[in-house]
């Protein structure tokens, strides 16, 4: 890096390199750091493009009419392209869920924690096993509900009870309860 002083003719000091080697280091580090920041900034869109796109996010709320579901019945619908179970629990199933000591559970939650006040018979969960994402059985007519009367995952044998709580098998947590609200007595908006 030539400087004005170096350029003065007849200067008696003979340089092999620059007068102050740190000046060149400074330029070098600055240039590389500048390029590094540029690479980092360009990496952001390249990484972010893999996140769910606007149309996928737009399909993130679903309205369900639950009027036709009789006690003891369940339906399978979809929410964000994932299976969603809507189940109308019978009084016996509610009693079975309430009879379990919450502290004895792997993922301690009561049925009331997992439903809306006054609507404890409506169990709305994702139909995605929290182990590795298979669809548990038990929502359809005549499917195996497992040893706890709720849902049973055929892939690796996770068993859920009538509140969708993990009771046995490799799954770490209860079936996920998405955000939802009753917009009327019979219509639920999920998401």
């Amino acid at each position, binding site marked *: 890096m030539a400087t004005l002083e170096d350029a003065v003719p007849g200067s008696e000091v003979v340089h092999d390199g620059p007068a102050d080697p740190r000046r060149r280091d400074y330029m070098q580090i600055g240039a590389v750091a500048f390029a590094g920041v540029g690479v980092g900034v360009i990496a952001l869109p390249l990484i972010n493009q893999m996140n769910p796109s606007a149309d*996928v996010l737009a399909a993130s709320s679903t309205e369900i009419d639950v009027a036709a579901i009789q006690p003891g019945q369940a339906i399978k619908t979809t929410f*964000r392209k*994932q299976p969603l179970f809507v189940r109308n629990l019978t009084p016996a199933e509610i009693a079975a869920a309430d009879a379990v000591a919450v502290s004895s559970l792997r993922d301690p939650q009561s049925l009331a924690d997992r439903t809306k006040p006054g609507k404890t018979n409506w169990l709305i969960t994702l139909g995605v096993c929290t182990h*590795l994402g298979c669809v548990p059985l038990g929502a359809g007519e005549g499917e195996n509900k497992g040893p706890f009367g709720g849902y049973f995952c*055929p892939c690796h044998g996770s068993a859920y009870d009538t509140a969708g709580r993990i009771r046995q098998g490799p799954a*770490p947590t209860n079936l996920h309860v998405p955000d939802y609200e009753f917009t009327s007595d019979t219509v639920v908006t999920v998401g």
Partner: protein
Amino acid sequence: MSFPWARHYEPKQPLMKWLDDRLPLPRFVYNAVGAGYPVPRNLNYFWNFGVLAGAALAIQIVTGIVLAMHFSTDANTAFNSVESIMRDVNAGWFLRYAHANGASMFLAVVYIHIGRGLYYGSYKPPREMVWLLGVVIFLLMMATAFMGYVLPWGQMSFWGAQVITGFFSAIPLVGETIRVWLLGGYAPDAAALNRFFSLHFLLPFVIAGVIILHIWALHIPGSNNPTGVEVKDEQDTVPFHPYYTAKDGFGLGVFLLIFAAVIFFAPNLLGHPDNYIPANPLSTPAHIVPEWYFLPFYAILKSFTIDFIVPAKLWGVLAMFGSILLLFFLPWLDTSPVRSANYRPVYRWFLVALLVDVLILGYVGGAEPIARNIIMGQIASAYYFLHFLVILPIVSAMERPRPLPGSITEAVLSKHGGTSPAQTAMSGGALAPAE
């Protein structure tokens, strides 16, 4: 680098001389896989499998590129486009069966290639880098095979994608975010299929690149051999061409015969019928199993059923990835200076035990998760880690190896009853009966 007695490329024709002065590509090939690469004279047929793996990759790339000309990456049409390849595209059934079974053949020869390396100690100094690059290639192959299996968008494709991306959700705190990022949605869908196709197209070329590094690293010390004894002088080696081009050519013929037999007579032997049902996000097949080449790792994943500090699911995922990552440390876990298991009377039996263990894991991986199988899988998984982390270092330290032959030539000549130039007490030791 090569041995000092390696032959030098000397173009005779004026055109080749002209080319050599400007772009020495023929010289490069001559030194890599031609007469310019001296190779130990005693290689057995297990040394065919590196070349066979290269041939299998070439077959996958060629059939894959032509299949991509007919495949539709849209989630609504992908399944039907594969069926159209099977029924309508000229010779499409042949190309698709060759590609699908080619993946199995590729993995099969690579598993034998890895087994060869384990038995003959090819991972030991000075070839550690060859081994490490090989493990990288294996990981890339697994990723490529998985993403390729998703593309037909059948039931097994869909649920395979769901389960395997589910591994990432085991990571604490950020796991679910990573899974959604990988899939581009909350479940496998159009976005996931498209990106898997893009990466499935890319990765084979990355594999080809790492293979070039793998061979480059191999050619620095030169090939290992069944005695594990280093090359000492010129009589220990023969030029790669024509000796091993011929031997590999014969092996390639046998490989292609088996490959053709599978394609023409049992093309669906290794597949799952459920994958001929279009993907249905609302119904999981009764029995999800991965392709045969992933079964031992799947068994390790399934073997963790009890939470211990962290959830069982996270243990399973860590152990499954750990079982492969462990191979990166193999050159430093095995401290025995003797390479070939032929001269390691204790180690070779533990190696047989490991092979049986992996076969048991493979069985458990594909079996129903009933109590007996789970316990069997747990014992076999524990033994797998025990082998590498405990047995191997102890055996390396305690074992008394058999006497090594003085040289490759001596081992070859004494085996054939010929008079070795140095048939002394030393080479006699190699023939001594087992302790």
